[in-house]
């Protein structure tokens, strides 16, 4: 068999190619090949998950230290089992203890996360509307100053309108406030449109990659 045919029928590549074609076939019509591979993928994912949980988590972090003599790790078993108390009324309180601990840990982390992540953004939201001192030798001094002010003014206007849209504490009767909030909603719509454009980019990139796999990596119709 020629080198090309050996490559074409190499099990790893062949399975990947057939799997890709089977899954993509659904966009044209629902069919049995698609269903078959859907179930194969689900089974593979489950099996992979079980294997990874043992080899990457339980064995190195629990089993290996335990058999190496760190017997205290055995205490994690009854503690872990307390989670399953949620399935009976009698032992429900056991699971609540653990959930309480985890909620506390998560809340503390989220607070740290929030203050570290968002406070600098809040501070940076207040942008100056006066241009900075001119850079020596700048030939477009006026242009840079005007663009600086316009950029920051636009930012502050959008920020004001969008924040106003989310003020639900009082009824928005004033025409200025109503208009600003409506403008804020339009800005939000524009942002959602841009986000949707990015979503399409991801979906298409994944499809392009699959086509690259089929035609370049598998069929070798072009050089990689």
């Amino acid at each position, binding site marked *: 068999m020629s080198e090309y045919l050996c490559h074409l029928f190499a099990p790893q590549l062949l399975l990947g190619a057939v799997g890709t074609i089977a899954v993509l076939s659904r966009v044209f019509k629902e069919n049995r090949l698609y269903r078959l591979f859907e179930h194969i993928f689900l089974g593979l994912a489950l099996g992979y998950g079980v294997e990874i949980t043992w080899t*990457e988590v339980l064995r190195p972090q629990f089993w290996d230290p335990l058999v190496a003599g760190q017997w205290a790790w055995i205490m994690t078993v009854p503690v872990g089992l307390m989670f399953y108390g949620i399935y009976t009324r009698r032992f429900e309180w056991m699971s609540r203890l653990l959930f309480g601990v985890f909620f506390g840990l998560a809340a503390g982390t989220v607070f740290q*996360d929030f203050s570290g*992540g968002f406070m600098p953004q809040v501070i*940076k939201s207040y942008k100056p509307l006066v241009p900075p001192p001119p850079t020596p030798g700048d030939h477009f001094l006026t242009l840079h100053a005007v663009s600086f002010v316009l950029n920051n003014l636009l930012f502050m206007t959008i920020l004001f309108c969008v924040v106003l849209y989310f003020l639900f504490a009082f009824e928005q009767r004033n025409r200025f406030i109503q208009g600003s909030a409506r403008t804020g909603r339009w800005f939000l719509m524009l942002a959602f449109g841009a986000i949707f454009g990015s979503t*399409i980019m991801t979906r298409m*990139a994944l*499809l392009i*990659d699959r086509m690259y796999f089929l035609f370049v990596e598998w069929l070798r119709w072009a050089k990689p």
Partner: protein
Amino acid sequence: METSLWQRMQTIDRRVIYALLLLVIIVPILVPSLGGAVPIIPSQQSLDFYNTIEGLAKSDPERKKLVIVDGWWAAGTRGENQWQEQAILTHLMQRRIHFATLSFDPQNKTLTQNIAQNLAAKYHYVYGQDYVLWGYRPQFVPTLKGISSPNGLQEAIKTDQNGTPLGQIPVMKDIKDLKDIGAIIEITPTGSLGTWIGLVQGKYNTPLLYAPTAVMAPDAYPFLDSGQVSGLLTGVKGAGDYEQLTGTHTFGTRATGALSLVYALIIVFVILGNVGYHVGRAAARREGQ
């Protein structure tokens, strides 16, 4: 009743649209020169990403600092994240910057290892001396807290993915905590950026570079504006930008060409669909009168 051209536009078989879509994807992949005809102009965010690495190469000539390359992607987003990672590691190796890879997805460990080893052979990078693979860590937040605690990095990571203690790996010898980290690169389809910023980046203002899938990129713009993120590679377009900047042309370049044609096709269909809809509605109104 006779149907007009515009009304027929409203009822194009979706399989025709899929076939056209596949065509505009496959042709630039098979004929790279066709996709290459669409110019790739690196975005400002990609340039910032590139310049941060360049700046690190200049500011640390003795290579005392380490770059952490964190991956949370798996086979499902290979189409974007693999090519980003390949372009980024290529740049790090071109500039002889030392780096460590960290995975928060078990698949990522193997995928990253493959990319790093292939490129290491090309750029003569030696494992342990120039780079190290930390491997998979199942606990995200505790690992990040460990990395950011004073002198806590080695305690948090402990061993590389082969089980060798970090203290025995030459490239890790002087790396004790976050002060020894030159930059953090996050390649991911997940929303983990905020946690990196909240728990790690803000501590010493370590440059954080973000390479997400395109769908996640808009989330990063406020962080770019505030300076918490130093650079951004948006999906496969970001990979294409980076290949352009580093002078390596692989999948990212081809995919960016194909992506431009796909967007052009979608725009044409959106215009045709909308014009058809309005013309059809006007015709129906006339018939009603």
